[in-house]
């Protein structure tokens, strides 16, 4: 009853449910104005025997209509806690949460709406299919709770199951399904009665690699078709960049950076984010020269120039970062441009899509990735070419 009110309060009449949304075109641009989920200054402490742990440290985030936001971070960074706070499974210590325009949590106003009245649905890491109910009953559960008329339930369950390719499993029990099938059924349950907000708690981490790739593609297609908004938790960087419209990289209970996957990858705002999203080569050093945005950094193995100098002044202790795929071997006789380092090729590892070449420069080992077979041999002396535009500098 209450989630109905919530839905109406949100935007009058649009998006009654995901299945209704399935037949209508993606939401009009005008609807984008009101975000689906708003999180304001959320704080959550866990009391442990060794003292308090700040799981969420003043986190704020917005998720728009039909937008997928991925929470990415290592275990213990607070991403799952944030998701569970939005779901109502965990109670924050302070802050506010709005879903579909309704205030569902506010420490100041003493509002705390229980999960069943928040009008959300969720896909769990362990699938969380009830073992004593058939696939039919599992998927029908949210509809029964919403008092959907009996004759409509079966039709909607079948439609949802058909969408994930599990329409033949109607009368089976969860224990009779494979992991992939279970997660598909769990997906069907999440969208069958959804009011347009679906939460995902590492949904692909329990299925094997092949199924994971398949499900990833299907998830993207399904979200595009149904147009629900999603908050998606994962520790897998590939999954995050593939699925998210925006990624929120989390660390130590804070949102370290929010942005489009490409922005996060190419312009990380900190060493932490750069390290978590993709591989990096790190070289500590000191700024010795500054010219506009361009700085020269003296490292233990030589001078490296970057055009992303930020506001580092000469004398500042910094760390220079280059992604392995941004390093390349200079061809013999090629004109010097940017910085160069000379080292010894340690080995060449063929990894299928690309090859990896560890190069020892002084005391440092730098990694080079290349999509082509490079004409270099193990033990050979090689010259590494740095493009100043791809060299990042952090404190």
């Amino acid at each position, binding site marked *: 009853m209450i989630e109905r009110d919530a839905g109406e309060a949100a935007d009058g009449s649009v998006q009654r449910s995901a299945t209704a949304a399935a037949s209508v075109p993606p939401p009009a641009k005008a609807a984008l104005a009101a975000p689906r989920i708003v999180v304001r200054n959320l704080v959550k402490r866990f009391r442990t025997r060794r003292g308090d742990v700040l799981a969420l440290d003043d986190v704020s985030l917005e998720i728009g209509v039909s937008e997928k936001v991925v929470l990415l971070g290592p275990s213990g960074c607070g991403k799952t806690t944030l998701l569970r706070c939005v779901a109502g499974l965990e109670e924050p210590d302070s802050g506010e949460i709005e879903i579909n325009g309704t205030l569902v949590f506010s420490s100041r106003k003493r509002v705390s709406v229980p999960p069943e009245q928040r009008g959300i649905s*969720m896909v769990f890491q362990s699938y969380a299919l*009830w073992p004593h109910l058939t696939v039919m009953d599992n998927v029908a*559960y949210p509809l029964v709770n919403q008092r959907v008329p009996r004759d409509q339930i079966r039709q909607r369950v079948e439609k949802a199951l058909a969408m994930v390719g599990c329409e033949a499993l109607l009368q089976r029990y969860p224990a009779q399904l494979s992991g992939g099938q279970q997660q598909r059924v769990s997906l069907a349950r999440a969208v069958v009665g959804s009011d347009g907000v679906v939460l995902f708690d590492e949904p692909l981490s329990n299925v094997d690699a092949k199924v994971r790739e398949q499900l990833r593609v299907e998830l993207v297609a399904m979200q595009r078709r149904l147009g629900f908004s999603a908050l998606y938790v994962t520790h897998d960087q590939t999954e995050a960049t593939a699925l998210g419209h925006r990624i929120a990289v989390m660390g130590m209970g804070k949102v370290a950076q929010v942005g489009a996957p490409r922005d996060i990858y190419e312009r990380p705002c900190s060493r932490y984010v750069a390290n978590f999203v993709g591989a990096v080569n790190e070289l500590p050093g000191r700024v010795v020269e500054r010219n506009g945005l361009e700085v020269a950094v003296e490292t233990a193995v030589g001078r490296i120039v970057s055009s992303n100098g930020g506001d580092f002044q000469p004398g500042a202790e910094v760390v220079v970062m280059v992604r392995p795929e941004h390093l390349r071997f200079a061809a013999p006789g090629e004109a010097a441009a940017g910085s160069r380092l000379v080292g010894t090729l340690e080995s060449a590892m063929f990894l299928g899509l690309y090859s990896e070449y560890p190069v020892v420069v002084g005391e440092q080992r730098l990694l080079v990735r290349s999509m082509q077979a490079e004409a270099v041999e193990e033990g050979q002396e090689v010259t590494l070419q740095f493009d100043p535009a791809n060299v990042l500098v952090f404190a």
Partner: protein
Amino acid sequence: MSLAAAGTPSVSSLAALLGGRRLFSGLAWLAIVGTTLLIAYPIGWIVYDAFVVDGRLDVEGFLAIVLDPAILKVVTNTIAVAGLSGLLALSVGAAFAWVNERTDATSGWTRDLLPLLPLLVPQIAGVTGWVMLLSPRAGLLNVQFRAIFGSGQESGIPSGPLDIFTFTGLVLVMALYLVPYVYLIVSAALRNLDPNLEEASRISGAGPFKTLWRVTLPAIKPALFASILILVMLGFAFFSVPIIIGTGAGIDVLSVTIYRQLYNYPPRTDIAIVLSLFMMSIVQAALLLQHLVARAGRFATIGGKAGGGAKVRLGRWRWPALGAVFFYLMATSVIPVVGLLIVSLQPFWTPNIDVSKFTLANYDFVLFESSLSSSALVNSLLLGAIGGTLGMLLAAFLALCGSNVGGTLAKAIDAITALPAAFPHTVLGVGFLVTFSQGWLNIHGTLLLLLLVYLVMFLPQAARSASSSLAQVGRELVEASHVFRASSLRTFRRIVIPLMLPGLVAGWVILFVQMAGELTASALLSGPSNPVVGLVLLDLWENGSFPQLTAMALIMTVLDTAVVLLVLRYFRGALRS
């Protein structure tokens, strides 16, 4: 509001149940206080009665009784019987567990039946069955042996070759009923022990038996200690076997002596109280010892998935091992039942089986003629059903409280549900007898008294069943229900209860069977006004009415089996594990 964030993530999900936290924990505390009083008051009364005479502390009376040579003889008997039968049960139970879990001499059905089968035949029925077969003169098997070997005819009255009314007979039959307890503990430990540990030993060059000795047994030491503890507790308090066989063999043990002091003329309540106190101190000492051993803590708890490791091939020992398990199963079920059946069909107990004289008169007597035995059957079934239901409801409620509220309440629940296990059933029986037959608490001779003592006695068992069935309900399953818009009450009804149900039903079956066939406390607390099956069987035995006794025992066996099979039929696999 902020109480909810006490660090347990599941708090928000189930805590709102049953009308909110305050009512929830209030009821739990009520249950805890009630149970505590039901244990502390009778036990406290016994202690008070034994040491305080005319308002002064007096140890002399206590010492005079304990140091009486006749009583000392009883104590040494008890130690010898409990010790030897315990040792036997430990070796056989552990061997069966190893054979079933680690060797190729196993089959699915022996694994499932071993702990289950001894439950079906009430102990006193099984014991009398064996007596019918192996009593020296009229024992049905002895007659067959005499016919085959032609022995025992020399003297006037034919007797032997086997005699159950001996020290050996007493120890063997007691061990028969102690084996399942060891088996359950040790096989669970073996199931949790990563077979890789043993495989690593085999690969390092140790044979299967060296591996057993050097790796397996040391790794399951805590389980072996736990078995020894339970053997001490059960062995010292064992009643059903000693009252039948021990009495026939002239070997009195503590539990039987306590019973006789209370019910022979003149009753000596003071001696009974002192002896139960003595029995209790032995059990407490064993508990303390186990606590110290466990605290020394050189045992790592072994986690890990028991992924079906390679089975030890027993070779030519496979068939003898299978045979031993099979014989054990027969010895606890079919063999004594055959003895019961034959005697129950005879007009009187005679070793000469004459089919033409078979009659159903004994069944007619037990079921219809004797009002005592027919009302005892009704009472026992009622007590089993009501006691089982109340016990499981209470245990399930406490388990839910414990897992959702946490903190002090959870600790109190753990402590209180384990507490009755520290008191032998005879002691609880004496305590209830003394305290509930006087003043405003006088409920002597009522079924309520029996119900209360059964509930207290079997609370630890009920609590174990309930907490293991609650463990079946994964946290995410409950959370998922809330997320998909089910209220707390609906989640409880549609998700929590159905998932817990098989475990609760299994717990109910065990409670039902044990309560309906209870003898130890019933012998003390049941009487003509509140008869139960255990008491009637005992009376029939003491009066020498063997055919009626066997008919009654067989009826009880059939009823138990019917209930267990019915439940198994509707809840397949409920009794596994």
